[in-house]
Structures are given as structure tokens and as C-alpha cells.
């Protein structure tokens, strides 16, 4: 399909460069992997388009498998609620993905509670409350303009008192370039740790698959102030492929945990490196 003219000529490699850049793998990763695969090709005999694709796929999968990313599972001996915090820039799908996580985690009968810590954006609390109602999951909220850390604190107190299995914290979208807003997130963590020094168990960065290179910058910046444990990659039901997560894993060691593939609460799939790479270069 790459118009192979019978040899791996410049056009062949240019086509691969185009294909990899266009799924947002970025220039550096693309050139590095193409050099590696091209350099690793032995005799003329084994250099076929199929082999090249296989080798590129293997390289990408090995990067994505280097850190396992999986959703948390509450074990019998864990007393307090597992705390999951979701952060990210504006509009990436945090609130919707939290609804999806709530649905998934409560499927086995686990008790999930949500904290509406976006006390800033218009109708943010109502949006999460509607999801809570749809899923039969309680939402802890306070007034707009209040301190998100105070809401988080009260939510963890309530979740603990009610023996909840999971507490998921929704936060306001914010650009990583705004220091005061990034400090606000760090404060939420500090305040939660007054109740339980072991939390949060998971801090997920929500990234929109349509993002270009800035997604990698976002990951680095959020990781500076928070113990990020994974990436939630959303909107993969579109045409964007989210290749930036390869750089994020390679450079920062942060794995992808789950993928958003639509606007319903059921549109969440757990991350599978092989399937994901097939989507990137298949």
C-alpha cells in the first residue's frame, strides 16, 4: 500500500516519515525509529516493506510496554478508599472520563464516590452531578468559588466514613503555564495527605488525542507538580491517533492507562499497546 516499487528507496522511507509524523509521533521519535529500523536491516533479502512495518511496530510496542499502565483494583486488605485524581488542560474530557471510570469501577459492585473539585467553570458541578445521577454514584460538591482542596478533603472524609472503595476527584481544566493553578493542584494533594499519607493512589493526566507536541509539554509540566501515574487518552473515536503518548512514555515513563472512544459512559477501553500501535501504523 506504500506503493512499493520493489526496493526500499527514498520514496518508501519518505512515506513512512509522513505516516509517522501524521499520527503525531513527532519528528524526533520518527527519525530515531526510522534510523534504528533502517540501520538494523541486514541483507537486501530481508528488507521488505512487511519486515519494516513489523520492526517499527515492535519498537513502538516495546516503548509502550516498558511501563505497565492499568486501572486500579481494590484489594480485600485495603481499608481506605482508593483515591484517583484526574487533571489536565481545558476541554480534554476529564469530567466525562471520570463518569466512564465510575461506571467501570462500580461494575463489580464496588462503591464509587465523586468529588466535584472544579469549583470554577460555569456549570461544571451540574455536569458532574448529572453523570452521578445517571450512574447512581454520589457526588460530593460545595459552592462555586470555594477552595477545591476543601471539597477534596471533605470528599475523602465522607468516602472513608462510608467505606467507599473509590473516590474519583474531578478538577478544573487549567493550562500548565499558569503557576497559581498548578500550585492549586499540588495543594489538593497535600490536603488529602493530611487524612491519608498514601493517597492519591492514581493521578491521571487527561490528554486529547487531537493534540500535537504540546501534549508532551503538558505531561512534563503536570508531572513537575503531581505524582502522575498514568495518561487517559480521549477522543480516539475521531481521526487523530494520539502518537504523543509514545514520547510521553519514552521521556517521562508515564504509561497510558485507558482510552476514551466516545461520549457515553461505556466508551472507555483499557490500554493495549499492540492494538494501539496497530491504530498508529496499521
Amino acid at each position, binding site marked *: 500500500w506504500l506503493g512499493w516499487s520493489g526496493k526500499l528507496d527514498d520514496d518508501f522511507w519518505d512515506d513512512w516519515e509522513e505516516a509517522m509524523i501524521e499520527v503525531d509521533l513527532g*519528528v524526533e521519535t520518527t527519525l530515531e525509529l526510522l534510523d534504528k529500523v533502517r540501520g538494523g536491516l541486514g541483507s537486501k533479502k530481508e528488507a521488505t516493506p512487511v519486515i519494516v512495518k513489523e520492526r517499527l511496530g515492535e519498537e513502538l510496542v516495546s516503548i509502550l510496554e516498558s511501563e505497565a499502565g492499568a486501572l486500579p483494583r481494590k484489594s480485600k486488605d485495603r481499608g481506605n478508599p482508593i483515591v484517583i485524581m484526574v487533571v489536565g488542560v481545558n476541554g480534554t474530557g476529564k469530567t466525562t472520563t471520570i463518569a466512564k471510570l465510575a461506571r467501570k469501577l462500580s461494575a463489580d459492585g464496588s462503591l464509587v464516590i465523586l468529588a466535584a473539585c472544579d469549583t470554577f467553570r*460555569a456549570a461544571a458541578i451540574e455536569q458532574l452531578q448529572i453523570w452521578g445521577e445517571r450512574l447512581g454514584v454520589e457526588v460530593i460538591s460545595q459552592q462555586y468559588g470555594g477552595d477545591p482542596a476543601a471539597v477534596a478533603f471533605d470528599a475523602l472524609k465522607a468516602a472513608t466514613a462510608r467505606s467507599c472503595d473509590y473516590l474519583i476527584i474531578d478538577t478544573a481544566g487549567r493550562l500548565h503555564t499558569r503557576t497559581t493553578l498548578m500550585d492549586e493542584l499540588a495543594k489538593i494533594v497535600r490536603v488529602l495527605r493530611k487524612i491519608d499519607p498514601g493517597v492519591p493512589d492514581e493521578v491521571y493526566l487527561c490528554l486529547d*488525542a*487531537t493534540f500535537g507536541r504540546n501534549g508532551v509539554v503538558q505531561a512534563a509540566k503536570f508531572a513537575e507538580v503531581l505524582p502522575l501515574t498514568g495518561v487517559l487518552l480521549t477522543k480516539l*473515536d475521531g*481521526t487523530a491517533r494520539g502518537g504523543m503518548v509514545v514520547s510521553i512514555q519514552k521521556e517521562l515513563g508515564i504509561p497510558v492507562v485507558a482510552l476514551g472512544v466516545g461520549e457515553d459512559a461505556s466508551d472507555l477501553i483499557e490500554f493495549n499497546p499492540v492494538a494501539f500501535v496497530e491504530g498508529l501504523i496499521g
Partner: protein
Amino acid sequence: RISSKFQTIFKQIRGQGRLSEKNISDSLRDVKLALLDADVNYRVVKEIVARTRQDVMGEKVLQSLRPGQQFIKVFHDRLVEFMTDPESELKLAHTPALILLAGLQGAGKTTAAAKLALWLKEKQKLSSLLVAADLQRPAAVAQLEVLGNQIGVEIFKGKGKSPLKIIGDAIKYAKSSKIGCVIVDTAGRLHIDEKLMEELRKIKDKYPPDEILLVLDAMTGQDAVNVAVEFDRQITITGSILTKLDGDARAGAAISFRSVTGRPIKLIGTGEKLTDLQVFDPERIVSRILG
């Protein structure tokens, strides 16, 4: 980072009496990489580089270069020229004027709708009616209501489940209330969602808007061309509002958008406040993209 890349590229060109073919090839390769790093789409970059190579080889550029003048300045100016459009103002011919906002999920449409209403009120003394035509997202109508209340602009919440009907009713209401502009906020949708794209087409066909603006996130990467081409192909957009430019994304999507649609970017979003809306400045966006 990129600016130092560009400075070195063109430092090699400046101060040289005559450019060798090798200088040009190397410099163009560096231009290509720099633009790709800024998220400009691959094929768009290829086109830009090819055109630049033609100009340089054809000596159009070199002849216009005075001794010591940096090639980068010429490249920069060419790009600014490319991003400039004489039709970049809002064309609001009808009474009431009709502005339709469309775009992917989370791009910033609802916020942009309210920003536009405030903009028209303050800059053009034009009253607006904000139409809550997103019946899909939880609390979307409530969101627009909160924003409308913040700026003293009326929100039209229709009855029933059809955005098309709500828009028709809103236009009637605006006419009878002598409101100057109807701004329609729509549900976020994928350009590949046939049903939702058809919904937009039906709106456009029944109530031809004065402006159909694609609201596009400045952080968008290579996918910008797919979104832009498809929205333009299906509903013939008149321009774009590029949002979230208050971040540090290079915003190469701006060049991709312009390149594949030929439409102007009319306004930019520079923050979450309703006052954070500015006229698109081609000079500033090119400087940002070229680093």
C-alpha cells in the same frame, strides 16, 4: 529552541555571497523540521518547503535580499502574507445577523459564543441572542446560561429536541425583539460523524448563516487538516476562531487550517474570561510558530 534553530539556518545563508545548492537544501530541511515541530501538518509543510525552494532557486528571494538581510525575515514575511486575509472581519449583513459556531468536542465553542456576544455588544453596539442548541452535553444549556448572565446577554432555550427547530424559533424571537445578532452554540461533533454533520448541513441550508465559524483548539496537531477539510467540505465555513492561545502550544494548526481551506482565522481565544477574545494577528501567530 526553534528560533535558535532558525537563526543558525539562516545565519549560514546570510553573509554568503552566493547560496550553494547544498546550503539551500540543508536550510530547507531545517525549515521543514522546525515547522513540523510546531505542529504544522506534514503535507502542508511539504508544500511550503517546495514553494520556498522554487522561489529561492528561481532567485526571486535572493534578488530581493539586500546584502546582510536575513533569509528568515523574507520567509517570515511570506508566511505573514499567506496568513493575512482581507476578509477577516465578521460579515454581519442580515438583520438579525446569524453566526453559527461548530467544531470538535471541547474546542471552546460555548465559551466563544459568549465571548462573541460580549465582543459585539462592546465593539459594535450590536445586541445578541445566544442560542443554546447543544441538547446533548450534560448541563450545556446551564453552562451557556451562566455565561449569558455574567455578561447580561439573553439566552434562548428552545422547546423540544430539535436544534433545527430551536434555531428557527430563536431567529423569529430575535426578529420580533429587534435583537441584532443570533449566535448559535452547537454540540461538539466529530467531522466523521455523518449524522451530526448532516444536522449542521440542514441548519445551514434552512437558515443560511452570515458566519459559519470553525472553533479550533490551538493545541491541535496533525489532525487539524482532517477537521478543517471536512467541516469546510460539508458546511462551507467562513472562517475560524482559534482558541486557547494563552497556552504555549506553537499553534501550527493555524497554518494547516489556512492552507487547506483558504479561509481566514477571524478571532482568537486567549483565556477563560469572556473578555479573552481578540482579533487574529497574522504577525503574532507567525512569530509564535517560527519561534
